[in-house]
């Protein structure tokens, strides 16, 4: 024990002093004899007395009490400080029995045994025990003694010393309690707490270490960090940090990865702090290793999310740039065609220019529709209206709408389909959109004169439709994200190939909404691509659906149509078109004019733009509905707004139909014929 080491030299000194006193005492007794000594002896005695007094002072200053137990008379002689330690007035006659009365009952047997052993062995004893004073105070003392032998070698007494170590013991108890508390706290902390001495040996390790290394805390105690079984690189880092803290007395921090017993990688931050002794020297290093695995994982997630957002932002910017390009693409031939019509009277050239305008306007409309789909995809509002539908009909419609593209590039299309009808439970419009997009892509990314194939099979309960081309193909990297929104094929790795990067993402969404799957394969760049769509089939044949085209509708009677649009060109051209197909049309350019005119004149129907400058189209509709003539007037919302919420708004405003611009001639004919037949009139 530390305190024994500390006081042992003092006790030895005290014993020496006691012996000296004993010697002096014997001479003192001789002093009582008639004074017949010479002067030298007197001087010598005086000098000894002075030395003894000085030594006594030193001993008492050190808090040491000395004693001599005369075994022959059972008299115990104490120094003044011994009386102080044992709480009796100085000079009180003391026996060994009285001495024993003061000893704490729990320590008495130990004291007796130590003294008896010393007497039996004619040797020394040394032990710590407690002394109980009359007022209940308990003192910790360290007692020691040496057996003195008489001429016949029999013990005649014991001389020795006691030191009051109460303060040191209490301080030690506090330290011990603190260490105990620290260990208890450390046990419940998620961190690993350890302490290394100046020899880099572990003197404390919290039990938490076992969960993270598989080895108990005891394994580490007394071992150097190099014996922990760490990878050599990590051990080198620990060594450098411990060395630095021990040398410089400054805390250090570092991080490291560790594989736990379950094979999971964990991330730690280690903080190493110096502990100083009373002389201000670094005596040890306290190391706290905090498990930051979860926090690091969260931080990594945040970094990855940030990177994903950046990628998405980049794609959005690319998308906007491509959008501008894609819109300009059709505008160029439209502009050229319009100029051709202006410069030539040649009927064939004008017809060709008209065809170009129609085709490119269709392309522009598709672009705008795709734009609308982006909103639906990203807000998850894409919905399908399921009905039994024949796959043959879907494929035929998709081919029909793609045929002009294929023809323009002189591409051939081969379609293989089972003769037995295949029924799907799906949204016909959306299903057509799926295959239209795939066929459009096949044509667009394939050279002129190449061939495109559609192969339809029944595989279990699913219909698989494979659309293959001989086009620019896909790299392995492209295949991974080809169905992501705004992703475009980069065949050369230099420039995008055009398109908004929406089509295939839309295909995937629509296929999945129908409970199917879409996949793509390609042998590589310039080796073509194959898109495979698998859709669940209906088991029972569905009833034959009626497909009514505009050409089947009965011829309509002449109508008077009100056209309301603040775009003067838009209103005027629609009025001209209506008149060109045999009806009458009146165009107005403000909402208030429309309301006034509708109250004055009898119209058969009205096309109303929604975004009017004075009052909105919705207001126009509501006001017309409040007039006697307008209550049953078929109202058609003609607008650039095609979102679900826009359609909901026009329904609420009692419009009969919602048509998005540009109005196709087929749609115009259908609407007019429905009104003429009375189908569009409100009851």
């Amino acid at each position, binding site marked *: 024990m530390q305190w024994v080491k500390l006081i042992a030299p003092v006790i030895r000194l005290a014993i020496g002093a006691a012996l000296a006193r004993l010697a002096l005492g014997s001479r003192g007794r001789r002093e009582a004899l008639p004074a017949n000594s010479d002067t030298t002896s007197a001087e010598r005695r005086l000098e000894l007395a002075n030395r003894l007094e000085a030594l006594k002072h030193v001993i008492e200053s050190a808090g040491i009490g000395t004693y001599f137990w005369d075994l022959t008379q059972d008299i115990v002689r104490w120094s003044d400080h011994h009386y102080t330690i044992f709480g009796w007035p100085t000079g009180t006659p003391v026996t060994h029995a009285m001495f024993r009365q003061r000893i704490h009952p729990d320590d008495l047997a130990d004291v007796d045994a130590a003294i008896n052993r010393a007497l039996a062995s004619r040797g020394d004893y040394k032990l710590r025990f407690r002394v109980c004073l009359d007022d209940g105070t308990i003192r910790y003392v360290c007692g020691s003694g040496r057996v003195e032998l008489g001429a016949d070698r029999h013990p005649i007494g014991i001389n020795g010393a006691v030191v009051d170590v109460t303060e040191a013991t209490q301080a030690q108890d506090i330290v011990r309690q603190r260490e105990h508390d620290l260990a208890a706290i450390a046990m419940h902390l998620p961190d690993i707490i350890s302490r290394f001495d100046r020899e880099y040996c572990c003197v404390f390790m919290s039990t938490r270490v076992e969960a993270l290394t598989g080895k108990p805390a005891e394994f580490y105690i007394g071992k150097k960090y190099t014996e922990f079984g760490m990878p050599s690189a990590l051990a080198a880092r620990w060594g450098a940090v411990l060395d630095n803290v021990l040398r410089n007395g400054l805390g250090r921090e570092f991080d490291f990865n560790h594989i736990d017993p379950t094979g999971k990688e964990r991330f730690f931050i280690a903080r190493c702090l110096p502990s100083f002794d009373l002389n201000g020297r670094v005596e040890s290093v306290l190391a706290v290793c905090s498990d930051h695995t979860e926090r690091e994982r969260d931080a990594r997630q945040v970094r990855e999310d940030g990177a994903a957002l950046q990628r998405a932002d980049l794609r959005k910017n690319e998308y906007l*740039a491509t959008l*501008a*390009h*894609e*819109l*300009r*693409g*059709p*505008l*160029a*031939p*439209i*502009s*050229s*065609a319009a*100029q*051709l019509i202006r*410069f*030539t009277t040649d009927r064939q*050239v004008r017809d*060709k*220019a008209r065809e*170009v305008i129609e*085709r*490119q306007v269709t392309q522009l409309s598709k672009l705008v529709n795709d734009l609308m789909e982006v909103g639906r995809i990203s807000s998850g509002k894409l919905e399908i209206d399921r009905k039994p539908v024949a796959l043959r009909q879907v494929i035929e419609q998709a081919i029909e709408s793609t045929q002009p593209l294929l023809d*323009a*590039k002189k591409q051939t299309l081969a379609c293989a389909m089972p003769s037995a009808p295949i029924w799907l439970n799906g949204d016909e419009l959306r299903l057509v959109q799926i295959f239209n997009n795939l066929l459009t892509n096949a044509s*667009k*990314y394939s*050279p*002129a004169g190449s061939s495109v194939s559609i192969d339809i099979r029944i595989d279990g309960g699913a219909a698989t439709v494979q659309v293959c081309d001989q*086009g*620019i193909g896909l790299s392995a990297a492209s295949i991974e994200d080809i169905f992501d929104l705004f992703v475009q094929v980069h*065949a*050369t790795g*230099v*420039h*995008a*190939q*055009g398109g908004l990067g929406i089509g295939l993402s839309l295909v995937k969404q629509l296929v999945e909404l129908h409970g199917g799957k879409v996949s793509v394969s390609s042998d590589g760049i*310039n080796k073509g691509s194959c898109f495979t769509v698998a859709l669940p089939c209906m088991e029972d044949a569905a009833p034959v659906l009626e497909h009514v085209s505009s050409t089947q509708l009965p011829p309509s009677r002449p109508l008077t149509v009100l056209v309301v649009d603040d775009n003067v060109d838009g209103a005027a051209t629609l009025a001209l078109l209506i008149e060109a197909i045999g009806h009458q049309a009146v165009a107005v350019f403000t909402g208030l004019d429309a309301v006034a005119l509708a109250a004055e004149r009898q119209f058969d129907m009205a096309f109303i733009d929604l975004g009017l400058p004075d009052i909105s189209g919705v207001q126009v509709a509501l006001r017309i509905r409040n007039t006697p003539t307008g209550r049953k007037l078929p109202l058609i919302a003609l607008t650039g707004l095609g979102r679900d919420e826009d359609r909901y708004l026009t329904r609420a405003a009692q419009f009969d139909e919602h048509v998005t611009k540009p109005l196709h001639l087929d749609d115009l004919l259908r609407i007019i014929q429905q009104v003429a037949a009375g189908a569009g009139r409100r009851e």
Partner: protein
Amino acid sequence: MNDTGAAWSSEQQRVLVVDDNIDAAEMLQMLLEMHGYTVRVAHSGNAALAIHAQFAPQVICSDLNMPGMSGYEFAHAVRASSHPQPRLIAMTGEGHTADRDTVAAGFDQRIVKPFSLDDMLACIRSMFARST
């Protein structure tokens, strides 16, 4: 209607139009032919390179974003070829396309779609003027 005012006769003024948008290429061909130029069209960079070798146009108007070989790559290939070097006009739908990119690829001039006929004719005339 020959108002090109160049040193060549109308049949000598050869223009190659390169655009994967077939309508765009054909409309421009018809307009340029109406103004006296001899025009051929190609819908891909590879097809255009073959026509360039045989037709020897003095001016080529090329789209930039085309499937397969891009307009930039086409221009590089033309400049690297041993055939007579034409003037190259880049027709771009990207308003932000930098002049330095088109110049670096070997183009002499850049025109943004949709362009007016007057602008295109002025551009082509300036190219022929520089070719003399």
